[in-house]
């Protein structure tokens, strides 16, 4: 070890040890020897002593070398504080509890913010990755992607991904898997190497040679028990044989947004689709070339797409380049930052509470401090002594808070919506620990500084003369405490308003009418791909028969099927043309949410038919094509006309509008209603497997039950499996669960903000109770005089309560101003309620005043019971 380090380490250790008597003995020996030498020389012993220096001086110098000075002082102060705190355990417990709550909540929220927002995505140099989409959200057609890739220079690499949900058969049990087709350039672009094996070789994305597959670590463990011998062995997906060539590391996830459940990846071959500019199915990812900024890449993509749009009108509009991380966490950034700010306010309130408790104690210790100063302690020394006390409180609060955070983080994860991105990466890491230590030190300083400065600034000599207690409270000190309590109220007010707004917003979300009746609906996806039911001839019969069999189950009221479940399933928006109208540009075609429904769907979902008829069993291949549209589509595309009997075309196929149904929520829960069309399933070639593209080899069953739909899940699955044991069934959910998932994020925000607001209110109430009790106890004498001079008890009560209320009111006004200032931030989180909601503001103000009234009422009652004679004698 380096000698200097060794010296410092030794001094550090020695700081915690008592000095041994050896040291003094050594010095005494030195003096003795010096005296003997002097006597031998015939000089007086006094001179020898003078030359050797004083014993205590040498001893001090030795101590300075032996230990670390500031640390020794700090430890001494801390020991002193601990002794003092041990004498008032209630105060110490209250202070530590407040701080633990504040620090713990901050640590818990920060650990989530850290994982979700701060840590980079788990790809190499992930800040260089971008995604290229239509209107930052929608997929892209193959020919457009290929053109961008060819013409751009801003990107080192560009790759694309496409939805892929194969059925794993030939293994027991069969399973419906979530996967992605990726172009060969995607893994090199992400910079993550496979754990075992390899990624696709160049050329594997050529049509015909795309039969290789890479597994996620999770899938490899789950289905193959981590067997390394599976490489090169075949895997049957959708009836085709694939070869396993690699396994990705456990932490690898792709895609980070949209299809986040993907567990296996296969090469993406465009084949004939290289010229396709209509079927938007790709998500494009790219790595910026060295030295190129996002702005430059945006400018280049804008230029390329403008050129392409001239060449192929309507195909290249509103193409956006978004940094990948922004795309992944963009939706949760605001809510998390609001929660972070809210929890910061809670800590501020806790600090204010502890600070004013310390101030009250400091007042009692005025005399002790005066004495210390009189005995020569410098001002800095007195301040340090106070800071040691508050830092000790903060440190203890930190340890308790950290334990609280370990539990709180787990609770937060349990509470938070499952689709919160990157939730699985939440953990206490070094950054979280540093954050906690940092806020603890700041907290300690914030709590201790006010009393320390005040004590050291006030006239301490005066305090000694004045005696045990001033006849009336010193005004200045009281003012600081009043400001602290008023600030607590202001902060609590802001939190409460935020929480109440969230509750009202959540209420508004809950009361949204989805159009259909979501109660008692069970749904599941049955996939027929690569089973015996996949054959077009058998598929239609199977779909009809499975629904018929489910209808006969006891407890089932109605059953039907659809391609994608509202709110939960995929959402295809498909352009169409209207008969007899001039053909617009490809990009400006009318479009609608594309649903393919079995007969009886509207009845099963209780989606009311407004005009015309629904989809009937007779609407099959032999009958002319029919379509039912929703109100929104009717109003948008046939304003002032009766759409029934009109014809629309999807591609080359024409359909006659036969009915109009009520609008229903299909994609977003809180968003606008989109136009929707419902085609008859028994007339749909791709749904029945007669046509390969768009691929559609599954049906989403919807079952309306008499009782609890979840209880029927097993019976319905058995009914399906009675046709074929190999049918993979997935996504078994009730409609209520789907809606709860949709509202999980606002519910999470409401709950967490509500909990914080409750804590804040509690702390503020404790604060006002504390200061009023203290004030009453200090003014016992004064109140005694008032009472003996004839003041009635009612006026004493009013005096004390009005003092408390004025603090609360002052704080509330500041809090209202603060809430108004922040209302535009809050607005981003609210649905159906304005951030400046007079009702909420008024209700919260009233509630806070009530709390203030109660918490100053108890000390006030005590004041009226003061006995004038004892109070006066007490002086």
């Amino acid at each position, binding site marked *: 070890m380096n000698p200097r380090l*060794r010296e410092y380490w030794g001094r550090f250790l020695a700081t915690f040890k008592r000095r041994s008597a050896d040291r003094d003995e050594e*010095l005494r020996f*030195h003096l003795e020897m*010096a005296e003997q030498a002097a006597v031998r020389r015939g000089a007086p012993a006094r001179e020898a002593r003078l*030359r050797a220096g004083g014993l205590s*001086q040498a001893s001090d*110098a*030795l101590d300075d070398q032996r230990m670390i000075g500031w640390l020794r002082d700090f430890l001494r102060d801390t020991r002193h504080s601990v002794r003092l705190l041990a004498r008032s355990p209630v105060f110490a417990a209250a202070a530590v509890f407040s701080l633990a709550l504040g620090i713990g909540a901050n640590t818990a929220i920060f650990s989530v913010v850290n994982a979700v927002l701060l840590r980079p995505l788990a790809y190499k140099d992930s800040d260089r990755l971008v995604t290229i989409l239509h209107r930052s959200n929608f997929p892209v057609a193959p020919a457009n992607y290929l053109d961008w890739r060819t013409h751009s220079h801003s990107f080192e690499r560009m790759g694309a991904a496409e939805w892929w949900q194969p059925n794993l058969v030939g293994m027991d049990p069969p399973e419906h898997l979530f996967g992605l087709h990726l172009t060969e350039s995607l893994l090199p672009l992400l910079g993550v190497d496979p754990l075992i094996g390899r990624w696709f070789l160049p050329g594997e994305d050529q049509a015909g040679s795309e039969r290789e597959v890479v597994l996620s670590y999770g899938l490899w463990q789950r289905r193959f028990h981590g067997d390394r011998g599976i490489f090169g062995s075949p895997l049957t997906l959708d009836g085709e044989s694939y070869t396993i060539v690699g396994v990705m590391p456990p932490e690898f996830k792709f895609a980070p947004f949209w299809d986040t459940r993907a567990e296996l990846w296969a090469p993406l071959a465009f084949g004939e689709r290289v010229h396709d500019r209509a079927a938007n199915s790709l998500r494009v990812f790219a790595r910026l070339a060295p030295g190129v900024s996002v702005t430059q890449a945006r400018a280049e993509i804008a230029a390329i797409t403008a050129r392409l749009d001239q060449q192929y009108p309507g195909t290249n509009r509103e193409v956006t380049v978004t940094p990948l991380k922004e795309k992944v966490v963009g939706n949760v950034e605001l809510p998390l930052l609001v929660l972070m700010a809210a929890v910061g306010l809670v800590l501020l309130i806790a600090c204010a509470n502890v600070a004013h408790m310390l101030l009250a104690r400091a007042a009692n210790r005025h005399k002790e401090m005066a004495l210390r100063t009189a005995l020569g302690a410098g001002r800095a020394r007195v301040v340090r002594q106070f800071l040691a006390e508050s830092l000790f409180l903060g440190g203890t609060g930190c340890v308790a808070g950290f334990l609280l955070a370990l539990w709180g983080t787990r609770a937060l994860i349990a509470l938070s919506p499952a689709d919160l991105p990157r939730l699985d990466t939440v953990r206490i890491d070094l950054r979280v620990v540093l954050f906690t230590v940092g806020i603890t030190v700041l907290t300690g300083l914030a709590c201790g500084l006010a009393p320390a400065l005040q004590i050291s600034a006030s006239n301490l000599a005066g305090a000694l003369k004045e005696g045990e207690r001033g006849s009336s409270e010193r005004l200045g000190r009281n003012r600081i405490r009043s400001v602290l309590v008023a600030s607590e109220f202001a902060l609590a007010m802001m939190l409460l308003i935020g929480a109440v707004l969230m509750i009202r917003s959540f209420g508004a979300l809950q009361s949204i009418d989805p159009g259909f009746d979501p109660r008692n609906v069970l749904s599941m996806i049955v996939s027929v791909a690569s089973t015996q039911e996949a054959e077009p001839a058998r598929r239609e019969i199977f779909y009809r028969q499975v629904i018929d069999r489910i209808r006969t189950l006891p407890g089932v009221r109605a059953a039907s099927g659809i391609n994608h479940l509202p709110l939960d399933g995929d959402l295809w928006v498909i352009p169409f043309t209207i008969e007899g109208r001039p053909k617009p540009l490809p990009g400006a075609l009318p479009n609608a949410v594309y649903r393919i429904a079995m007969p009886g769907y509207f009845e099963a979902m209780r989606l009311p038919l407004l005009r015309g008829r629904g989809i009937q069993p007779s609407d099959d291949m032999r009958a002319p094509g029919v379509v039912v549209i929703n109100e929104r589509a009717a109003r948008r595309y046939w304003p002032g006309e009766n759409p029934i009997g009109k014809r629309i075309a999807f591609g080359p196929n024409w359909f006659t509008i036969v009915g109009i149904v009520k609008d229903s929520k299909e994609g977003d829960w809180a968003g606008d209603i989109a136009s929707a069309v419902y085609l008859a399933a028994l007339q749909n070639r791709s749904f029945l497997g007669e046509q390969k593209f768009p691929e559609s080899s599954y049906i989403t069953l919807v079952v309306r039950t008499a009782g609890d739909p979840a209880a029927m899940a097993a019976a319905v699955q058995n009914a399906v499996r009675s046709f074929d044991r190999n049918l993979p069934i997935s996504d078994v959910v009730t409609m209520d669960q789907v809606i709860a998932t949709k509202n999980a994020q606002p519910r999470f925000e409401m709950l967490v903000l509500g909990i914080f607001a409750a804590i804040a209110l509690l702390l503020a109430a404790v604060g006002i109770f504390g200061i009023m009790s203290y004030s009453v106890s200090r003014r016992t004498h004064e109140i005694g005089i008032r009472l003996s001079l004839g003041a009635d008890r009612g006026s004493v009560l009013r005096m004390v309560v009005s003092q408390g209320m004025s603090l609360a009111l002052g704080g509330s006004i500041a809090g209202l101003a603060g809430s108004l200032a922040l209302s535009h931030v809050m607005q981003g989180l609210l649905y159906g309620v304005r951030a400046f909601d007079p009702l909420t503001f008024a209700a919260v103000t009233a509630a806070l005043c009530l709390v203030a009234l109660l918490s100053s009422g108890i000390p006030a009652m005590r004041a009226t019971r003061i006995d004038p004679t004892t109070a006066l004698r007490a002086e």
Partner: protein
Amino acid sequence: MANRDKADVLQGTLDLMILQTLSTMGPLHGYAVAERLEQVSNGALQLNMGTLYPGLLRLEQRGSIRAQWNRTENNRRARYYSITPAGRRRLDAEKAEWLRMASIMSALLFEGGQ
């Protein structure tokens, strides 16, 4: 603060002096070190305890010397310091450095002008 300045100037050389003394004389107690230094300097160096003992402690903390209680000739208990191998290495290095500096300084101050 004149004392403090002197102490600062002394610190580096004090270490060297103590190490050299222990190296030539073998184990000594604190008073003997002070006495020896006073002798060698003809009374010019008079270390008080407040300078000497922190210096010894610092060398001990850095591992250059070690201390042990022992008996004097008069059978008195005293703390004896002895140089360690690491201290000897440090002494050699600093002696060389001192010589180098001294030759540079003397060249600059006395030979340059001639």
